[in-house]
């Protein structure tokens, strides 16, 4: 601000006036927001009126009432006498159960298919291309129904297929050998996770020191101690039991072991194969995005091929791969809601049943939206964090 007083009034006037462009902008905003508010307000007043006519009280009080809906396939203890809120939690766990395992399997299979697509073996690359094209061009829901029908067409439990000892495939689903999980076992798993985190921190520290003084430091003794020694110690001190129980056929069903219900298994297969086709394409284009010159340059330096792939090509390819991969993970999670078509009770299916039983449509849909927005946000945040870590740092 200058001290010359004669200018001051004019300046002030200028500062508070808007030019034509800003006025038009303001008018547009008022118009659009006004229309949006009017539409939402109109819908809302209709809804309030309709709800009062139908004597449906809004709010989430219904969550405390008895659900009375049976849930067949669940990891948590649940009975139809439990309240709705418990049913919703069971549904969320069911959604996460299929989404998380699906994401891991789809990533593994998709990456393999994507690399196979680039193989110099003609047959392998053609087969991978057919796999991708076939699965991508048929609706997921159709594939899901197809797998489910195949699953139902499998022989009964008595005549179950036994590909390897202890694994049974029948119209009751897939039965696998399992380890009973007691509290001690959980502590051992926690020890493995803690070991992984410690190893990660240690690795960064060792790398930093290696960068500082140039001396090679080995990580594997620490890895052995943290990932094998520590869990073994915890397991021994708590006396955890690791006996594998083999499923057995008794009468018409299996006893012991881990059973994947046909609904869950069909949904998992459909989600994994469908998403893996998209992931394969992402991996393929990611690797192809790295110019051949990078390989040649690394070879000219005398680096070994595995080292080149691990340290030069893959880190660069990951930058191309991660953003579209994130949206595939989100798609898989959202697509898990197709569970309702085969009767696997995920959160959408349970919300739908709730909606039919109580008429609380707005609340049920709001709950679905909340759950999925939270999961989407979680995946996005994690992948963005990972993406930022591997992103190109330009100096």
């Amino acid at each position, binding site marked *: 601000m200058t001290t010359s007083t004669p200018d001051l009034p004019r300046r002030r006037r200028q500062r508070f006036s808007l030019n034509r462009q800003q006025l038009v902008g303001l008018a547009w905003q008022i118009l659009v927001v006004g229309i949006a508010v009017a539409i939402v307000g109109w819908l809302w007043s209709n809804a309030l009126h*309709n709800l009062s006519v139908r004597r449906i009280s809004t709010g989430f009080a219904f969550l405390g009432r008895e659900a009375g809906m049976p849930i067949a396939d669940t990891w948590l203890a649940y009975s139809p006498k439990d309240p709705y809120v418990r049913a919703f939690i069971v549904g969320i766990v069911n959604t996460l159960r299929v989404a998380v395992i699906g994401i891991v399997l789809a990533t593994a299979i998709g990456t393999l298919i994507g690399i196979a697509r*680039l193989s110099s073996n003609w047959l392998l690359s*053609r087969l991978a291309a057919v796999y991708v094209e076939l699965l991508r061009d*048929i609706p997921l*829901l159709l594939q899901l*129904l197809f797998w489910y029908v195949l699953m139902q067409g499998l022989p009964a439990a008595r005549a179950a297929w036994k590909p390897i000892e202890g694994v049974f495939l029948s119209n009751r689903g897939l039965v696998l050998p399992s380890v009973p999980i007691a509290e001690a076992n959980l502590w051992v798993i926690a020890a493995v996770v803690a070991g992984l985190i410690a190893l990660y921190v240690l690795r960064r520290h060792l790398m930093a020191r290696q960068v500082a003084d140039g001396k090679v430091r080995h990580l594997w003794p620490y890895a052995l101690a943290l990932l094998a020694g520590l869990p073994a110690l915890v397991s021994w001190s708590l006396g955890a039991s690791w006996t594998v129980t083999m499923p057995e056929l008794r009468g018409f069903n299996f006893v012991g072991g881990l059973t994947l219900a046909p609904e869950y298994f069909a949904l998992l297969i459909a989600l994994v194969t469908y998403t893996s086709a998209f992931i394969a394409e992402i991996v393929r284009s990611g690797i192809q995005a790295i110019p051949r010159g990078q390989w040649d340059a690394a070879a000219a330096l005398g680096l070994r091929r595995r080292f080149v792939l691990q340290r030069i090509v893959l880190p660069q390819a990951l930058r191309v791969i991660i953003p579209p991969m994130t949206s595939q993970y989100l798609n898989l999670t959202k697509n898990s809601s197709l569970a309702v078509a085969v009767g696997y009770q995920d959160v959408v299916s349970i919300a739908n049943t709730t*909606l039919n039983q109580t008429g609380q*449509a707005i609340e049920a849909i709001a709950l*679905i939206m909340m759950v999925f927005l939270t999961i989407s946000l979680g995946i996005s945040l994690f992948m963005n964090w990972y993406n930022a870590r591997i992103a190109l740092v330009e100096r």
Partner: protein
Amino acid sequence: MTSITDAPESPLPFGSARSRKTTGHHVIRWLRANLFASITSSVISLILIALLAKAFVSLVQWGYWNAIWSVPSDQTGACRSIRGLGACWAVIPEKYRFILFGTYPFSEQWRPALATLVFIALFYVSSRRRWWRKELIAVWAAALILIGVLMWGGIAGLTYVSQDRWGGLPVTLILATFGLAFGFPLGIAVALGRRSKLPAIRSLCVLYVELIRGVPLISLLFMASVMFPLFMPDGVNVDKLLRAQIAFVLYAGAYLAEVIRGGLQAIPRGQHDAADALGLSYWKKNGLIILPQAIRHVIPPLVNTFIAFFKDTSLVLIIGIFDLLTTAKTSIIDPAWQPFSVEVYVFVGLIYFVFCFAMSSYSRQLEAQAHPN
């Protein structure tokens, strides 16, 4: 991108197969270069050939050798006796009219068939580059009106058929096409809004896009089928198909907006500056300069979105609208034909595949034209 028929030049130096000196007949030379270049490659090839041969033999046995192609009406005993060993293709001639056209009056089914052909012709015309001009919008309007006349009837001597009797392939095509036809302008508007300098409009567009993209399509369809009537004033009854159609338009709008936004971001700043320097208004600048370039940029991802959208229309099965997948699933409720759902799903899968494969090879072709190297 490469198409399925041409072998890609591998970008990875996995073995130096192609540089090896080869002699002999060209077939042997080809085999040696592409299947038996190294020990690992040979082992993989042999395993794959064995597996493929086994799969092929059992597929031919099931689908052709042991298959039954026709049975006297509803006498499926012969089919039942070979269940698991051979396909019962007899279910297709028995049920194809219902699968393709649902409960549309039988004697009038030439009308949905003709509507389907109009749709296909419309898609073909829209895919040709020399047809990409303003008249195309008029062609679309005319074709959609023609399809409406064919499906509804009520004029020109056609008997009236209400929407709840529509079904099968035309319904799938209607949901997809109208969803895109209305979702596309919506997507453009939202994409522009999201890049606007006006904060209120921008946040409204962000809210819309993120809300729709954040939840599964099924929950939108539930909303359309269950919540929509709650939000309407008394006495207003919107048809179920129309409600689903509205949900699809909103859904397509959000996804298309993101694709178009990608195209808008690819337009260099200089284009905006040049348009401003010419004194063009906001609408003229975007309509004449920015959008035509932006949309051209994103045609391949747009086609991919169309494919995804076409497949997603099958989700109306869950809210009980008779699209192609629902008619297929309903056609095998008939106890006589119940065990033969695999055959029906294969048949319907083939129809979906033909449409999607046509679109995806078209997208590859466009991409190849855009990046000749």
